[in-house]
């Protein structure tokens, strides 16, 4: 319905290579500077030029946890954009397009849209140059939305500042002209307006999930990143490389993923906090070395930013298809920890917590995110991604002083009740030791002794029990006494939470049960939480319902319904609500 909005949604569409994503990022940033909360999601193809890309932005007065439907304002950089998105527009939604497109405006209007034709290309050429078309388009949108011009101007100054005054001035001229045109021609025409701003708070940041994660890793003392580029994990390597000098993180673009993880294991072995960001295909190649880290008890953090599978699959799209693979990758059995952060804040936290867990339990830690979480941008308070919330716990790491006090020869793999053996790093005369991926005794030497093997296996696996104590149970969002519970994990939490009011509108009082700590499984809190569930629908971004199957394996719990999506696009709250209603038999 037109009218006052809780939030407003804008989509920018165009061809690959037209700068859709950077325009979207700028508009998101401008809205955040203007005092709104934003959430935005890019949608692009696995190619460099050509093909329709788009960028969805949502702005609200309260924090948004996901994008949402339908769209109130469409910024069409190509004619195709209109055809693609028309089905998803709200009644009376505005469509900004270049007057050169020669569209049949009355026809658009008859289909319930508000055509907002503007001479964008002309304005760009006249006031700056052709390349500034996107600035014109952005400013036009700002004008339509009544976003203050000075906000846009300051952003343009900051963005283009490094390119010299001429570029800045050109962009400013173009922006002003387009803004003015939009206001003059169409003021008050759009039946939707920006919602009330958030209260005056701290200055907010707009970060992608991967960026939030990088900040977390920096805070967590990450000193070594090795990787091989792979969408959608590449931005982690690239961000770290760009900040290598500033924050002091060694970054290595390796010859392949096998080398990347092996380098990280080598770095972790000698004492660096080392990480490897990749996606499923890279993870497949890292499988063998994951077992090496497990066997030799080397801390290492592996980030799997999931994308659409199987195989090369849908390289630029999202999926939660690797859960069971991550839990069981590599031959044999060894302790690993699997975290599946769901929000930008949780992804930031996983960035430092993973290193603490890796060093405390001397094992590989897998951070399982996905393209949706990694690439979506959200406005956050600075405190949400600041070091104040961070602790650094290196676990049982022996200092030089500890080693000098040692009375018996150091045993790297000493049997302990917790399964964790005090760890020395190579380089100290008191702690010369050897490690091997073969089964070994306390001193790291190969053994084929049956009993020693069993004891060593038990020792290693005991670490999982020890770690389980600090794994977090699922979080509940929404009413505790809900009649229906949406069970989800990882990034699905955002749209799932946003679906609750939609369900309530349809008379279904639901809540969300969200898992972030997957392995070791937080058995007791999970069972407690499941005990309180009256009726459950498992919502996952995959084909086979992996988390539902996992939950049954661990607890015997069987969900009453399943909503699964595997088209590579993230769930919207509307899709979850519709899917859940269908599962519980409420007609949509």
């Amino acid at each position: 319905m037109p009218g006052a909005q809780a939030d407003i949604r804008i989509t920018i569409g165009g061809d690959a290579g037209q700068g859709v994503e950077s325009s979207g990022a700028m508009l998101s940033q401008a809205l955040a500077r203007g005092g709104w909360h934003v959430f935005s999601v890019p949608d692009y193809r696995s190619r460099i030029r050509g093909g329709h890309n788009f960028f969805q932005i949502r702005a609200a007065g309260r924090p948004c946890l996901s994008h949402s439907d339908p769209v109130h304002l469409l910024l069409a950089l190509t004619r195709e954009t209109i055809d693609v998105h028309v089905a998803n527009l709200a009644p009376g939604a505005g469509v900004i397009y270049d007057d050169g497109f020669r569209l049949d405006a009355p026809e658009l209007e008859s289909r319930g849209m508000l055509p907002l034709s503007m001479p964008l290309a002309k304005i760009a050429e006249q006031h700056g140059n052709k390349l500034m078309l996107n600035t014109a388009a952005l400013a036009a949108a700002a004008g339509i939305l009544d976003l203050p011009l000075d906000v846009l101007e300051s952003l343009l100054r900051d963005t283009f500042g490094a390119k010299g005054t001429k570029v800045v001035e050109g962009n400013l001229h173009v922006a002003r002209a387009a803004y003015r045109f939009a206001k003059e021609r169409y003021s008050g025409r759009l039946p939707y307006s920006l919602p009330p701003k958030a209260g005056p708070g701290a200055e907010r940041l707009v970060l992608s999930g991967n960026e939030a994660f990088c900040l977390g890793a920096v805070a967590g003392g990450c000193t070594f990143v090795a990787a091989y580029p792979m969408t959608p994990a590449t931005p982690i390597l690239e961000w770290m490389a760009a900040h290598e000098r500033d924050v002091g993180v060694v970054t290595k673009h390796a010859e392949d993923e096998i080398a990347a993880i092996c380098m990280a294991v080598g770095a972790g072995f000698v004492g660096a906090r080392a990480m490897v960001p990749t996606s499923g295909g890279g993870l497949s190649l890292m499988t063998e070395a994951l077992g090496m880290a497990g066997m030799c008890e080397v801390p290492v953090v592996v980030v799997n930013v999931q994308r659409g599978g199987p195989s090369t699959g849908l390289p630029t799209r999202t999926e939660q298809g690797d859960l069971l693979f991550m839990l069981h990758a590599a031959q044999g059995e060894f302790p690993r920890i699997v975290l599946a952060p769901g929000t930008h804040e949780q992804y930031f936290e996983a960035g430092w917590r993973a290193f603490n867990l890796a060093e405390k339990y001397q094992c590989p830690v897998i951070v399982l995110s996905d393209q949706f979480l990694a690439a979506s941008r959200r406005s956050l308070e600075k405190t949400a991604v600041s070091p104040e919330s961070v602790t650094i716990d290196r676990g049982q790491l022996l200092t030089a002083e500890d080693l000098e006090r040692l009375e018996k020869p150091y045993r790297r793999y000493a049997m302990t009740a917790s399964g964790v053996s005090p760890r020395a790093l190579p380089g100290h005369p008191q702690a010369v030791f050897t490690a091997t991926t073969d089964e070994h005794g306390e001193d790291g030497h190969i053994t084929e002794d049956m009993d020693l093997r069993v004891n060593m296996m038990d020792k290693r696996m005991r670490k999982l029990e020890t770690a389980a104590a600090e794994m977090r149970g699922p979080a509940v969002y929404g009413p505790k006494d809900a009649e229906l519970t949406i069970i989800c994990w990882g990034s699905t939490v955002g749209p799932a939470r946003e679906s609750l009011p939609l369900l309530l509108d349809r008379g279904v009082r639901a809540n969300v049960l969200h898992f972030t700590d997957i392995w070791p499984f937080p058995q007791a809190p999970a069972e407690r939480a499941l005990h309180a569930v009256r009726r459950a629908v498992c919502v996952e971004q995959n084909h086979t319902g992996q988390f539902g199957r996992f939950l049954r394996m661990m607890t015997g719990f069987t969900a009453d319904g399943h909503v699964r999506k595997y088209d590579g696009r993230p769930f919207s709250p509307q899709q979850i609500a519709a899917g859940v209603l269908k599962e519980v038999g409420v007609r949509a």
Partner: protein
Amino acid sequence: MPDAESAKAPGGSRRDKRPNGRPAGRPEVKTYATAYKPTWCPGCGDFGILAALKAALVDLEIWPHEVLIVSGIGCGSKLPQYIHANGFMTIHGRPLAVATGAKLANPELHVIVVNGDGDGYGIGGNHFLHTCRRNPDITHIVENNQIYALTKGQYSPTSDPGFRTTTSPDGVFELPVNPVAVALAAGATFIARSFAGEPKHLQRIIAQAVRHPGYALVDVLQPCIAFNKVNTYNWYAERVYDVAADDTYDPTSLRDAWERGTEWGDRIPIGILYRKEGVPPYETRVAALRDGAPVHRDLRARLDPALFQRLHREFV
């Protein structure tokens, strides 16, 4: 006992020193002795390599805690088990990559890789190629017995044409890898060959390889008495000659190195076949290493609000 909030590695941030000081006196061969007896076949060439490596380290006055020996999987890759030094027996084919990570995280360690020909040139071929051109300061000793020994006798990438094994019943008909030629083509800055049957020669070569700043390949002809009945001690002994004996040989010339490096058959050149000075090792060029090694970094510095104020700026 360990301090949970301890954000420093042992040895703190003494960047300018060898790790953790050095014991008094000089190391001796017995400094490197362990209680574990090698499980190699009596007469295996790996014994000679182990002895030469120990002797070379002693010559260089390096202490066990200053070394990290990284190996893969295979008979020869068991070497770290039999020497008292930091050791890491990794997975098959990957020691160069693990060693590179270790070196980048703690450049103060002398990092030495030992592995077999299957491990190094077969499954590990890609890391070999890229380590050559990367030039980290790592010594790479390949126990080249021209066979897969630990898996009981299949042909390896260095097996000679015609060699019959369980996986080449009609004789090998792939051209063998010539590690010298490949390393040369890939840009290695130190390339040598030696022979397990000439331990003094090997010891000298290893010492020079360790001293070389950058990646140094030492391909060692290593008789496997159990599975390679062709390339025996005698077979090698009759063929090897040291290029150092030839005054006209210039190991800094790419052309000379190519000519000799590709020689294999009735005569097999050993010694230092190529050496290029002045190429800075990879780790000396890494920006993040200029302020000290990751393992010596005080991680609490990362919790500095000023750092985050700076980082936050790009997201406003």
